[in-house]
């Protein structure tokens, strides 16, 4: 591609336009509140509680994905079976469901009209307006990202290593825990970060399930609705910083082609 062609300059202009479009709002967001205001926001117990709740529930979603998603990811990476494409499509479904609909769908099975809701009521588990409810919706939206990342990670590990381990006397689980798992920790970590990053950004599903207790995105929305732009910005800055930290961790841990993930 030579730099003389007018076509090149059209492309560069489009690039500049897109960068401005992406960066201007974010820079304005981060620079609008004064440092004093940002500091002061950190003394606001409501803000701290909301950010902590977001971090904590997103972390819980990542841990749950890790516990029940890892074995499934391993099976998907190591076996071929008819209908595998369908199974993978089902796992991807939560990505395409509009966010408020996710909340409504989950409330649908948690209500007393549904057998599952009745069982939960008997066990006095309540999703509406509870931390467990938030964790359930965040796990729902975050799980596909975890499974896809870890499946790719397992696929990158040669099954021959497991074969050799088994020929040396290890059972299937022995080979998994002594060989595959220690080798896949990086992609497992990347998967957990991707899951948590997706979960911490979630707003539409959370606001349906739980206006209170309030996660950071809901708090930002409430401040915006109640007090206007200026009052929502400092909280937004702190949440963006948490998200950018996760994004940075992701870029460092997964250096190859991380373009179309998260």
């Amino acid at each position: 591609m030579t730099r003389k062609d007018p076509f090149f300059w059209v492309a560069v202009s489009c690039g500049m336009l897109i960068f401005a479009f992406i960066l201007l709002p974010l820079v304005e967001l981060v620079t609008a509140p004064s440092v004093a205001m940002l500091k002061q926001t950190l003394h606001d117990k409501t803000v701290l509680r909301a950010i902590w709740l977001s971090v904590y529930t997103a972390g819980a979603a990542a841990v749950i994905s890790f516990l029940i998603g890892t074995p499934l990811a391993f099976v998907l990476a190591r076996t071929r079976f008819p209908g595998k494409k369908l199974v993978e499509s089902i796992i991807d479904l939560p990505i395409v469901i509009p966010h408020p609909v996710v909340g409504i769908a989950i409330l649908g099975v948690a209500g007393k009209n549904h057998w599952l809701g009745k069982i939960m009521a008997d066990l006095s588990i309540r999703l509406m307006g509870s931390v467990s409810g938030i964790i359930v919706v965040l796990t729902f939206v975050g799980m596909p990202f975890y499974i896809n990342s870890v499946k790719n990670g397992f696929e990158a590990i040669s099954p021959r290593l497991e074969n050799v381990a088994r020929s040396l006397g290890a059972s299937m689980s022995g080979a998994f825990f002594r060989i595959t798992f220690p080798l896949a920790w990086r992609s497992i970590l990347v998967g957990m970060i991707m899951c948590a990053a997706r979960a911490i950004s979630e707003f539409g599903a959370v606001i349906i399930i739980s206006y209170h207790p309030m996660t950071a995105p809901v708090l930002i929305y409430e401040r915006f609705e109640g007090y206007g732009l200026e009052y929502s910005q400092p909280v937004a800055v702190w949440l963006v910083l948490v998200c950018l930290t996760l994004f940075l961790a992701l870029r460092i841990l997964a250096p190859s082609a991380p373009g179309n993930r998260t």
Partner: protein
Amino acid sequence: MIQIRNLTVDLGEFHLNNLSLTIHDHDFFVLMGPTGAGKTVLLDAIAGLVPVSGGSIVISGRDMTTSPPEKRGVGIMYQDYALFPHMTVSQNIRFGLRYHKIKPQRAATDFQNLTTELGIAGLLKRYPDTLSGGERQRVALARALIVAPQVILLDEPLSALDPGFREEIRLLLKRLHTHSAVTFLMVTHDFAEALALATRAAVIHNGQIQQTGQGMDIFHKPASRFVADFVGMKNIFPATFSGSSAVIENLKMVLAAPVSCPTGHIAIRPEDIMLSPAPTGLDDPDGTDGPDSAATGQNAFQGQITAIIDHGFIYELHVQAGEVVFKSHMSKAAMVDRALSTGKKTMVSFSPAAVHVF
């Protein structure tokens, strides 16, 4: 003893088709075949790593067809060695010990002896990615041998090594085989390896065993068209015989000995086919690649060069004589010196002793 009866495995691309094979205790059995013939699938099936859809595998009298890999007493060493990258050499070698009832003291002695014999005692604390190819292979061998398997399966153990190393590892494998009670089953596509190491050998193609026997027997007496081709006889033709002469298409040629059955195949190595430049049968005075044969050979035909194919170190020349295309090998220098080119007329000749009949 490993007895494989009518084994069928279907992995899509790779398959075994009703394969039967017997390997005796303490054999160094070498299985040869081209890429995709099913060599590695057979190893995986013996190790219990692929699902078997028919037939049986009996190892030392016990039917192992459906046993899990960890119950078979079969060690495997892959071409890429498959060392565990997150473990040191020492941890790699000791990996299997906890699954076998070996007394700690005995294990310590075995470990010492094996690492010393394999010359890897100085590498114990290093990680696999810091080792050379030859070192990795020795570690993989030690890891497989320390649990004292009944059988060890070797998947092209020499092909990933530098040529200089191969000789060394070949001798090492021979020594390990002699000094242990383990049965070795190795697959390769290299004939020289098979001849150097095998006590017995077989050729596999298309998921089936084509021929079993001594390495030299397979080389000199291929039993089928495929094996003849595999051992490098590029000129293979169906022929009709009468006494000690054979006819292929419209060419009649003399054989070294009379043949009893009326039809069959003949095969000639491309190295045994001589080309002499003048159709008058006159000798090439340069004499670098055996022109004597052209003068003394009883089989000589007039032909024309139809193709010249570069094989890197040598050229393969296709010469059409009548309806038959003979393939001959020639060095680059010889071809340049003789200025051979497509379309040129030439004499094709070969001695009766060079004609193999099957």
